[in-house]
């Protein structure tokens, strides 16, 4: 019995994207500057450096930390980090016995204004399939082995809450100021797959 062969595409992904662009443009449906403005936001303004500023402030300012944990949206809005995919922000507080990690098993939902657009591996099939089932193993494979007394808590971004991880301030950072602390907080630290460490 023959099974139908799926229609083979001879075009490339880039050609298909440009074809869609061309059809919309020919109908005058794309306002001037619209694509450039949104691309500027995506490429430059939504960045993990924003999340680093939020976390560093929470490490040095107990009042801000309290606000961040109570109302993450309001705390991030103090920095101007609002907008699409940043409308309901929840900060996840690590402790010496709890490690939070973020995933979106269904697609790619991420706190854009605070973490930046999700990286390829985060949107990839491997991370989405494996993290909710074997979080500790995934962290170890990525380079973050955790002792058995630390519980791994995975947050699946399946509705409209958008997360960032608030890690434990690392030992050896006591002398560092807010600006120096920001440098310890990477995109992976905000996702939760890495721990901040003092160089």
């Amino acid at each position, binding site marked *: 019995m023959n099974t139908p062969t799926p*229609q083979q595409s001879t075009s490339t992904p880039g050609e298909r994207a440009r074809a869609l662009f061309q059809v919309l443009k020919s109908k005058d449906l794309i306002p001037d500057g619209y*694509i450039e403005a949104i*691309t500027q936001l*995506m490429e430059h303004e939504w960045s993990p450096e924003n999340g680093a500023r939020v976390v560093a402030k929470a490490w040095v300012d107990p009042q801000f930390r309290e606000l961040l944990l109570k109302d993450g949206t309001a705390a991030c809005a103090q920095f101007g980090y609002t907008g699409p995919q940043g409308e309901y922000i929840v900060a996840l507080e690590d402790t010496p016995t709890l490690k939070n990690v973020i995933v979106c*098993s269904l697609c790619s939902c991420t706190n854009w204004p605070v973490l930046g657009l999700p990286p390829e591996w985060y949107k990839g099939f491997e991370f989405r399939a494996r993290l*909710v089932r074997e979080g500790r193993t995934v962290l170890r*494979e990525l*380079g973050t082995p955790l002792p058995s007394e630390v519980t791994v808590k*995975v947050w699946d*971004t399946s509705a409209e809450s958008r997360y960032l991880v608030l890690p434990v301030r690392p030992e050896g950072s006591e002398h560092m100021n807010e600006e120096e602390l920001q440098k310890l907080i990477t995109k992976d630290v905000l996702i939760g797959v890495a721990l901040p460490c003092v160089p």
Partner: protein
Amino acid sequence: MDGFHDLGGFQGFGKIPHTINSLSYKTVFKEDWEHLAYSLMFVAADHLKQFSIDEARHAVERLDVRQHVGTTYYERYVIATATLLVEAGVITQDELDQALGSPFKLANPPHSQGRPAITGRAPFEVGDRVVVRDEYVAGHVRMPGYVRGKEGVIRHRTTEQWPFPDTIGHGDKRAIHQPSYHVEFRVKDLWGDANDNGLVVVDLFESYLDKVVAEQTVTA
């Protein structure tokens, strides 16, 4: 729908292609067309108001499985936007084919018209033990299959409400707004004792949940 997109717990994948703290993310778009995937989706959803983000997610879910597996992330969003704009009558399949110079393969049609939210119940409270309703939904749904029928504990009820995805994901603007709940599950309740002794928190709309009523001893 129980599609390929619902990847939580799917086995057979290898290592995650990443080294922690590598700076590969710094080039946000790796190819010169990739920004179009999101920016054209914004044009269609935000500027032209032709669909909601839930419909875009559902269109990705409707990609033929072989196409889904064989495409990269940004390709899928180009196809989703093109599919929804053709379905809305804003553009046509012919126009896409002509612009491309070959057939532009779109996502499959939906299998459902969507469904309404459950209304008329009291909201759940933090600390409540809940069970995820044992439902099989043909249309868009934001309940990952791996929590279906599982019990967990509510840790947070959102202070905001959003249109029910199973309704708005089909373009039905009658969607009722509901809060979602951060429901904490034990890994061993989801995947058995052989696995990690951790926790998984899933953000679930109210209509996906029922309260677990504690069994009471009846005394005469």
